[in-house]
């Protein structure tokens, strides 16, 4: 090449690169004119707009969009925490005093009398936590007992806790989840608690606009959001219990995101539709089989172990569809939740009893049931979370002579009946914010249904019965409490794991699967977050970065 052409070639090359850059990237990121997202949930209606009450699938995403916490779990990948309304925090050496420094320039949404909202102060934060500690206004009041809240400056909040806990456990209480949402003090005090019930005022990326019972809730963007104004012009949350309607709405483009069925075949069918994408995300719920040791023959460890041997997690997972179902071995949450036992750890501890029909039959014969026995188990009508996996387990138990009849009831009745100690086996699907909560509510003696000091969801009666037949009452109460007050996170996890191994050794529960969620969406939806692990909302998180791309 002649020397004279070199500069021209360089200029042309640079121009080509620039043009590809401009038009290529520009084309990929071109936004649709219609920046409205309609997301449909498998629920008949909203249950509440009060963030400290929001627990249902259709309610949590609204709380998540309207409110913030002092810290938050990053959208779409909720494992660690990061700053939210607090820009920094520190803890005293004894772990009892936590001081949070608030971000400046964060404004509440407008409401009557405050057309431009008002700036968040420590008063609002203190008010919010006090409200979250009151059973009248919060479902999570128990989480805040022994805590006091104080505004030590306009932007500084001091929280004192009687008994110090480790950082992950403490920050979970002030995160943008459950009782950790920060509400507007002025809105509630000036407009009234009844008004606030139907008109939530927070600092989040979206502002509550309207609600039509059993139909929809509409949110509009908060242009003053401290992380930047949302790209979307409107978010519509629709309540649609019919899956075929949600499916058709997605196909016609009237809906952009829908709550799907937790079934592989359905997901595959939907994923094959044009302009639709589906990504399964986790973990969302763990499914476990709890033995009621207060009822015969489940008070006999040999029977429980036999049932455990008769069950094949892999088979249940295959029956449910391996794209969504993953076998689990931890009796408290499932990995990647910190502190949950992995399969390798349970194998090492020799507490895995599964997939061995011969051993199951041998144990049943030893227990005096050589031909098996009959039992009736109450189960919820909910297909993927309860009924379907139990049908798989029912077939597996048949192989060892156990005739397990399933009494299917509606979901509300199921929750009432199992709390009345009416079922010899309880198949339960749940996700809790951390291992401590899970262990406490499912295995602490205080939580035993009907008989505990604070009856909750300990269906097995562990802690009040002799589980392994050695004549002594078995319990993990001490380990749970020791772990709760352990400040060293590593030691805390070791204690949690010790408790879990003891539970598995005593065959109190058989962890079965964790079931991922699938929310099909239009291909043009760009959530702006990775959608890997979204336990706090049960749904894809819509944030200020969410947008709809042009086709």
């Amino acid at each position, binding site marked *: 090449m002649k020397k004279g052409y070199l500069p021209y070639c360089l200029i042309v090359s640079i121009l080509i690169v620039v043009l590809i850059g401009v038009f290529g990237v520009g084309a990929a990121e071109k936004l649709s004119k219609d920046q409205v997202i309609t997301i449909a949930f498998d629920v008949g*209606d909203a249950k509440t707009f009060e963030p400290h009450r929001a627990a249902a699938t259709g309610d949590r995403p609204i709380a998540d969009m309207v409110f913030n916490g002092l810290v938050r779990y990053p959208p779409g990948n909720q494992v660690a925490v990061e700053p939210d309304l607090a820009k920094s925090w520190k803890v005293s050496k004894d772990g009892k005093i936590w001081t949070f420094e608030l971000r400046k320039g964060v404004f509440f949404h407008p409401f009557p009398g405050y057309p431009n909202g008002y700036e968040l102060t420590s008063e609002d934060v203190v008010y919010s936590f006090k409200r979250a500690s009151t*059973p009248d206004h919060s479902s999570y009041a128990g989480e805040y007992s022994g805590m006091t809240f104080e505004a030590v400056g306009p932007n500084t909040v001091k929280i004192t806790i009687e008994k110090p806990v480790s950082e992950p456990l403490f920050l979970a209480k002030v995160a943008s989840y459950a009782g950790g949402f920060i509400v507007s003090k002025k809105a509630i005090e000036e407009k009234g608690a009844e008004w606030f019930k139907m008109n939530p005022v927070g600092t989040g990326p979206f502002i509550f606009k309207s609600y039509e*019972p059993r139909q929809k809730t509409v949110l509009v963007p908060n242009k003053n959001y401290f992380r930047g104004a949302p790209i979307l012009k409107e978010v519509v949350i629709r309540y649609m219990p019919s899956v075929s309607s949600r499916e058709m709405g997605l196909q016609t483009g009237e809906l952009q995101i829908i709550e799907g069925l937790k079934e592989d075949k359905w997901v595959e069918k939907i994923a094959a539709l044009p302009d639709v994408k589906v990504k399964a995300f986790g973990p969302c719920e763990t499914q476990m089989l709890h033995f009621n040791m207060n009822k015969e023959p489940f008070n006999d460890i040999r029977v429980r172990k036999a049932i455990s041997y008769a069950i094949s997690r892999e088979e249940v997972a295959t029956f449910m569809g391996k794209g969504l179902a993953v076998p689990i071995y931890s009796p408290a949450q499932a990995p990647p939740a910190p502190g949950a036992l992995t399969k390798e750890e349970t194998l090492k501890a020799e507490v895995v009893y599964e997939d061995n029909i011969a051993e199951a039959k041998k144990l049943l014969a030893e227990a005096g049931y050589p031909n098996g026995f009959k039992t009736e188990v109450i189960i919820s009508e909910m297909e993927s979370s309860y009924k379907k996996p139990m049908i798989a387990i029912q077939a597996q138990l048949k192989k060892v002579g156990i005739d397990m009849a399933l009494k299917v009831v509606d979901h509300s009745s199921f929750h009432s009946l199992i709390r009345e100690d009416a079922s010899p086996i309880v198949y339960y699907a749940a996700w809790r914010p951390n291992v401590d909560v899970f262990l406490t509510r499912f295995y602490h003696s205080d939580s035993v249904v009907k008989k505990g000091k604070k009856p909750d969801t300990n269906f097995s009666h562990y802690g009040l019965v002799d589980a392994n037949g050695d004549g002594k009452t078995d319990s993990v109460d001490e380990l749970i409490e020791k772990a709760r007050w352990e400040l060293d996170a590593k030691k805390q996890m070791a204690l949690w794991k010790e408790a879990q191994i003891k539970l598995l050794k005593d065959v109190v529960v058989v962890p079965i699967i964790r079931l991922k969620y699938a929310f099909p969406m239009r291909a043009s939806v760009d959530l702006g977050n990775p959608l890997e692990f979204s336990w706090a909302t049960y749904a894809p998180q819509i944030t200020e970065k969410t947008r709809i791309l042009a086709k």
Partner: protein
Amino acid sequence: MFQYSIRRIFQSIPILLVVLTLVFVVVRILPGDPAVAFLGDYASKESVQALREKMGLDAPLWLQYLKFLKNLCKGDLGKSIMGYPVTSQILNVLPYTLELTISAIFIGYFLGIPLGIPAAVRRNSFIDYFNRIFSLIGLSIPAFYLGILLMFLFSIKLKLFPVVGGGNLSDLSSNLRHLFLPALSLGLIMTAYITRMTRSSLLNILREDYVRTARSKGITERVVLFKHALRNALIPIVALGGVYAIVLIGSSVMTEIVFSRPGLGSLMVGAIKQRDYTTLQSVMVIYSVMVVILNLLTDLVYGFIDPRIQYR
């Protein structure tokens, strides 16, 4: 007639009272705690108890019943479990249920009568067999399933009508577009009823002596059919409009859910799921009142179109 109507309305009061008592008892017999259903299984015992007290569920059943009746007499239907006034909820959705029911009845009559006439006139012909099969399918197929099929054809394949929601009542075009498919799915079921009714009623009339007399007088078949036979055959068909409406109100529950339409049906199902006693009782009150009114109207219309009937 006025006295008769007043008497009937008063006679309905004990019936309403029995229905309301039954509803009140049945919703409470159902296992499931409204407070747990509302707060979720993660809520603490203290929070559940606090809500139970707030909702008045810890009061004795008889006291809850008396309070319910007292409020009802005052016209206060109370607030839903979420805190939304039930009266507003019902008033918001009632127009959607009424427009759906009325349109379905209209479609039923509009298609059913013209289909039933040839079936009766040409008994055992091809058109009769066709109509009988059509009405058999119509009577067998659930309206919500037909709705899904219609959605698939008209919305997914032809992209003509929306599938989500009830549209805006103040925007006629949006409202009609959202109404078309649910009304058609219920209307086609209604058509099946009316086709069968028209056919059998007309067949009976065509065998009457006065029809034979008319024919023997040399009157054309068209006049015999439309002036002498059909007018009399239509009496039970028209008079039974109220009964059809009651049937439709029942069928509309699932149709409203499938089309995600606002309406009394979807309100009721949602209330059952949430154990929302206040909303459920109120919707049942409205349903009961509607059935009583429709029955009364049926009786009145019968007398109006059939001079042989007198009110005493």
